[in-house]
């Protein structure tokens, strides 16, 4: 019924249906199985219609988001609009021990649930597909409110909370599944939204999520690869900035970049790695060298380009950027200092345009 009437509903009936469905979706502390799939599908068709999505007020938005995330992560499901995890800033803590126990706790908790649920149920995947839809609404409260001049601390935004949820999700389910793609898409939406508006939160969240994204790099799915490219493209300029690297005592960013760069020689060998660019795709003409998209000083993208080819191009650009970032001389000095402080053996040696060197190291170490 909902699918047929979605275009005819105005605001009040929509909200009524919405509230009714939300309440019936949850039974006890989990999703009510008999109705779950149908209600989830009905909600999705409702919310895919943009005016309804815009009509959703912040309260209901938060509630639905909370339900979706609880289902995905195996937490007890409640109708509540305060579902953010308590965020501990692991990056600033001196030793890695605290951080590890935290993640271990979450992993065991998630792991127990994961064992119970060996495959992702259809209802869950429907609810997960709701997440990118909700995030694409312009009313989504991702950014924190502007700081009040009387307030002593800044409220953290929902954007960061969502990134933390995603981080937990990746910890629980490291191997690829069908719901990874919508999760990645929602990650990119959130990242793009907070990129220029809440830079600190981007750095905090990004550092958590980066190693997990790198772990997914060897995927076969083109959709996931595309989303990963976008995520790295957003995160790297901020995470390789000197202020971020100062905070990164564990060397998370360096390690992630090195692992990515090490995949370069293997790219051509795997069937689903990138292939080199074809000249027929390019238009060779001398440009003015300004940093415009899909243009260099010598060539620009021409016709015959397809999504595949553009993904390749983006990947090559990203790799070149990473090679350059790894060779940042200021970061080099900082890393040497921090390596001396934490007494870790520097597994990587840094210099400009040094990826060849790392590959030699990696080859030597086996």
């Amino acid at each position, binding site marked *: 019924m909902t699918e047929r009437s979605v275009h005819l509903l105005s605001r009040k009936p929509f909200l009524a249906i919405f509230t009714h469905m939300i309440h019936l979706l949850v039974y006890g502390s989990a999703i009510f199985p008999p109705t779950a799939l149908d209600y989830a599908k009905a909600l999705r068709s409702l919310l895919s219609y943009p005016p309804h999505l815009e009509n959703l007020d912040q309260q209901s938005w938060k509630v639905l988001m909370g339900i979706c995330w609880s289902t995905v992560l195996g937490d007890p499901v409640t109708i509540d609009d305060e579902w953010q995890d308590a965020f501990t800033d692991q990056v600033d803590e001196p030793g890695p021990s605290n951080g590890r126990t935290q993640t271990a706790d979450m992993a065991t908790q998630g792991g127990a649930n994961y064992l119970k649920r060996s495959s992702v149920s259809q209802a869950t995947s429907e609810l997960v597909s709701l997440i990118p839809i909700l995030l694409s609404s312009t009313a989504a409260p991702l950014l924190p409110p502007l700081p009040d001049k009387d307030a002593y601390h800044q409220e953290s935004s929902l954007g960061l909370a969502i990134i933390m949820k995603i981080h937990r999700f990746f910890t629980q389910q490291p191997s690829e599944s069908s719901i990874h793609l919508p999760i990645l898409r929602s990650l990119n939406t959130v990242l793009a939204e907070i990129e220029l508006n809440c830079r600190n939160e981007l750095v905090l969240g990004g550092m958590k999520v980066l190693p997990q994204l790198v772990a997914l790099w060897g995927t076969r799915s083109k959709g996931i690869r595309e989303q990963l490219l976008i995520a790295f493209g957003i995160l790297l300029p901020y995470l390789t900035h000197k202020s971020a690297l100062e905070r990164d005592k564990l060397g998370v960013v360096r390690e992630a970049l090195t692992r990515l760069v090490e995949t370069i020689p293997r790219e051509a060998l795997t069937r689903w790695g990138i292939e080199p660019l074809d000249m027929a795709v390019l238009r060779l003409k*001398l440009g003015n060298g300004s940093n415009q998209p899909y243009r260099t000083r*010598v*060539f620009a*993208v021409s016709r015959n380009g397809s999504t595949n080819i553009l993904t390749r191009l*983006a990947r090559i650009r990203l790799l070149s*950027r990473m090679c350059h970032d790894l*060779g940042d001389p200021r970061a080099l000095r900082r890393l040497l200092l921090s390596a001396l402080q934490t007494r870790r053996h520097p597994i990587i040696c840094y210099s400009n*345009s040094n990826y*060849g060197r790392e590959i030699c190291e990696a080859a030597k170490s086996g």
Partner: protein
Amino acid sequence: MEGRSAKRRKVDNALSALLTNLEGNTLASRLIHLQVLIFMVDRHWGSLHAEAHTAIRQAIIDTLDDEYPALQCWGLVGVATLATLTYHDGDPSGLVLELASPSRHNALRQGETAHWTKAWAHAMRKVPMAPLSRAASIAALSLLVHAKISIVEAVRDIGPFLRSIDISGPPHPFDSVCAFLTAAMNLARADAQLYSLNLEDKVLAWLGRWTALEGSRGKTRMDLNTPLDMVQLLGTCCQLQSYPFVDLTVNETLPDCAIVERVMVEAETQALRRFVLEGHIPTAESPITRKSSSTASSQSATLDGHSQAFLDGRNRLASAITAQALDSFCTDFAVTETTAVSPPERLRRAIDMAVTGLAFQATLQLHGISTDNTCIQLGIQLIKCIQPIALSASYSIPGQHLIWRGLAPLVYTPHETPESWPILLKPDVNSGLRRDILPPGRYASAEVQGRDSGIEKIQQVLWRMPSVSPSSIWRNKRY
């Protein structure tokens, strides 16, 4: 400091490791490394130090001697990219250059000159050869335009090349080949000795062997040049000044997908990002850089078509070449059934050819030379041939976009849209400046009026020709 010397040692080791990696395993792997290197050179040259510059240049020059044509091809593209970089790109603050001694300057230059000479010789040799022709031309063009080789050397090589072009020239007028030939002919014209050889005739003879219908990739695949390239080449052969018209833009070629959207958004907000991350504020453009359209041609009575010079010599030959190409297209379309499904690329190629022909005739008229009516008639006839097929609605949206965009040079004047977020507002009332402080030209509102890119000239001339009128081209108005 110990860290710095350690860094230098590691740099040498790392770069030598880079060279060995370029000579690595499979062709695909080496190509990927080379392409990553080229992108790094393009975007991040400024933050690499001098030894890295030299080593990268050496590595790219070495790929020119490789056995695989694909690597040589990309090596030439790398050479072209390197040639566009100047000393200033390597040192944005200018400090290093100021402090360096003249002997250091000379040493830097000498190291480079050997590379450039080798690259130039290689490129000139490869321009006539089929798989490398495009890349070699862009490399040679880049070296020429950015003055990486001396004029003497350039003239010495271009002379024999142009003289034998009708016998052993490039296989096809690609985009970069056209641009290189234009630059080469301009250089030859400036030299006393070469001027007397009338090398333009040789180029026209070479162009006469161009099979427009087949193109370089067959009838149904888009060719690697645009009408603008061809018209510029023809114009240079006939010693006519070329007028701009709408060319292929990058934005229209991009398909719809998530990553393209992200890249475009990133480009728009790049100024903001640089400000947030690096505290960089873009420098204001000076108003003098705004180009004023050339006034040389505006005074002649070219728009009316009276009192014109007779069409002869090279102009006639060039018109004949385009007429012949148009004729082959018309015949091809006359043979096929109107109900048969044609791929959109075929239609677009035909439209491109018609645009080339008509634009060249318009250029002739703008220079006061009478036009070749046969050519114009053939152009219009070709468009009429395509019309029934194009108007059928069975093409997908990208296909339709491809076809209709082909007519853009004839009808469309692009407006400049701002591409990125402004960091600093231009001076105007909105930014709080009174109107009487700065000279009138410096205000933002003044720029809006003075924008005449000269693109309309070709269109104005074309639509005023007696044989060209909207009713003769489109029989039934669709919109």
